[in-house]
């Protein structure tokens, strides 16, 4: 059986008046059935562009220039718009997009939006049946089924997030992509939502990509981790391995920037500098201007991902290449 999702050397650029923004520049990763991967990186590093590319719902100025996205063995990059609509979107891959606040259309009832998803893919389901399924989904995510006829503004942030997750599950997708599922929620609701996602994953055997800038969320709910910096994946592999021994200086810095509740209190270390302009990324390794271990070669040659020790840990860094 082929890998569920296999992204190979994906390149997505945005055309602007000043040139190409290299938002995703040669990204590769793979997800097996039932697996969950965390995709972590700063704001603006191209995380969201990766998923928009996978679903091929990029804004008109964005284009996939190169690479393949194999989903159950089919290359999505080559599929037509109609095939994407009919077979892939929501049925194969569904999306919980950037927090709860805005993913539901404010002028339609929540139930109708869920029913719309169901009836788009199963046209012979009546509206009543679709709403009935919506009620079941509401129960599944811990919402009162009688609230199905409410408008989004009548929900709290946490409820909206649950409703969006219910909608994402409406067509029994194989892969759930959650883009910043817990931002804009307070910590307790955040924990509840993550708990819900974890539990759903177990009961429904879902595969998942979890996009976030919060490492602690990934640590709690994923098997795999991909760290993205300036349009490239700098470190990729098994979650526990990376957490135990982060090899890329950026990953190390990211982990240091989060407090450890069990350790003694120590000042958090932030990463100096700011993310690079993706119109004109730094030459060589894109992290080199901010990297404490930067060497000559770093600004000249781009590091290629190297497999370290096991197959399940790749790093793109010259420091590792030398060893």
């Amino acid at each position: 059986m082929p890998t569920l999702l296999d992204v190979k050397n994906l390149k997505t650029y945005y055309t602007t008046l000043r040139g190409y923004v290299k938002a995703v520049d040669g990204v590769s990763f793979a997800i097996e059935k039932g697996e969950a991967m965390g995709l972590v990186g700063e704001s603006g590093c191209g995380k969201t562009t990766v998923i928009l590319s996978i679903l091929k719902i990029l804004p008109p100025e964005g284009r996939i220039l190169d690479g393949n996205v194999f989903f159950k063995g089919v290359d999505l990059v080559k599929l037509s718009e109609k095939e994407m609509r009919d077979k892939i979107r929501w049925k194969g891959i569904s999306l919980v997009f950037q927090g709860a606040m805005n993913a539901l259309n404010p002028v339609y009832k929540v139930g109708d939006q869920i029913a719309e998803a169901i009836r788009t893919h199963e046209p012979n389901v009546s509206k009543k049946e679709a709403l009935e399924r919506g009620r079941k989904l509401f129960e599944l995510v811990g919402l009162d089924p009688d609230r199905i006829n409410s408008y989004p503004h009548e929900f709290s942030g946490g409820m909206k997030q649950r409703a969006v997750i219910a909608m994402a599950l409406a067509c029994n997708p194989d892969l759930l992509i959650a883009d910043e599922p817990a931002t804009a929620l307070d910590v307790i609701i955040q924990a509840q939502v993550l708990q819900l996602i974890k539990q759903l994953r177990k009961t429904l055997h879902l595969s998942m990509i979890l996009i976030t800038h919060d490492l602690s969320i990934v640590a709690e709910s994923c098997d795999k981790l991909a760290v993205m910096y300036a349009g490239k994946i700098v470190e990729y592999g098994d979650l526990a391995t990376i957490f135990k021994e982060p090899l890329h200086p950026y990953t190390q810095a990211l982990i240091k920037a989060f407090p450890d509740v069990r350790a003694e209190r120590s000042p958090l270390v932030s990463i100096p500098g700011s993310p690079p302009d993706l119109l004109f990324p730094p030459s060589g390794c894109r992290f080199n201007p901010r990297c404490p271990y930067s060497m000559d070669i770093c600004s000249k040659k781009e590091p290629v991902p190297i497999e370290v020790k096991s197959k399940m840990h790749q790093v793109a860094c010259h420091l590792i290449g030398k060893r």
Partner: protein
Amino acid sequence: MGLKGYILKRTMYSVVLVFCVLTVNFIIFNLMPGDPIAQYILSPESRLTPEDVETLRKIYGIDLPYHERYFVYLRNMLTFNLGKTQVTRVPVVEEISKRLGNTVLLMTTAIVTSITLGTLIGTFAAYKRATKTDTAIVTSSLILGSLPVFWIGILMLFIFAVYLKWFPFGGSVPKWWAYTPPTSPLEIIAGRLYCVTLPALTLVIFSVDNWTLLTRACVLQTITEDYVVTARAKGLPERRVLLKHVLKPASLPLVTAMALSFAGIFTGAMITETVFSYEGMGHWIYMAIMEKNLPVMYAVFYISGLLVVIANFIVDLVYGMIDPRIKVGR
């Protein structure tokens, strides 16, 4: 507060507004230079004695103090007791009933066409944002929008009436109806359309740029929202995404603009009707101002004000229907 309370509140606002319109009209016309009776004295065939003038002043109630005149005026307006025209002595109500239908036909045709076209073109431009199509649409809208309406009217006459001879030069009904009145309803509709097309087209050209640019701006604001990305990810066809998930939330400012623009289109209609000698309210008020026909001016300003207030009232209700958040709030 439910829908009932909302409607009640909007009704109260509308009533207050009508009073404001009436009051402002009263003030404006009383500030106008010249005594209303002066016309009778000035006309060459007049042989009025000062006593006659006094009698006339009594008849018209101009001898009363301003506040009393104001209340008489209010009562007459609210009961639609609009008097007779100053020169031809025809009841104003009778004249209005002849013309209001024509204006309503012209404006409805123009507004419906203009909004439909403008919304579709604007949405399309936003969808094609930052492409040549978009630039072309925006540029031509700006050019169209800066044309004066009387000039568009003359241009339309020149092209379609003089050169192509497709449509008549003017009038609100075909000239031959005077000799052979129409018999079937189909004939009436065809004749009406024949006459209303050019003025309506003029008004559409005059107002469509507004809708196009406004729709484009509103849609651009909405098209990047998360729920639009979600709608696309759900596998909806692009047209459905645009018309259902983008246009409806984006249409709120449009609906407001509709109400506000009603007055502007009315003004445009006034000029257009004059250009096409179309027998409507606009043409009539133009004539009334020219001859300083006070009863007509009072009536037309009152009724057009009333129409604008009613349009706003309807739009407020539609607002509540489009956006569920408005019903419950406040």
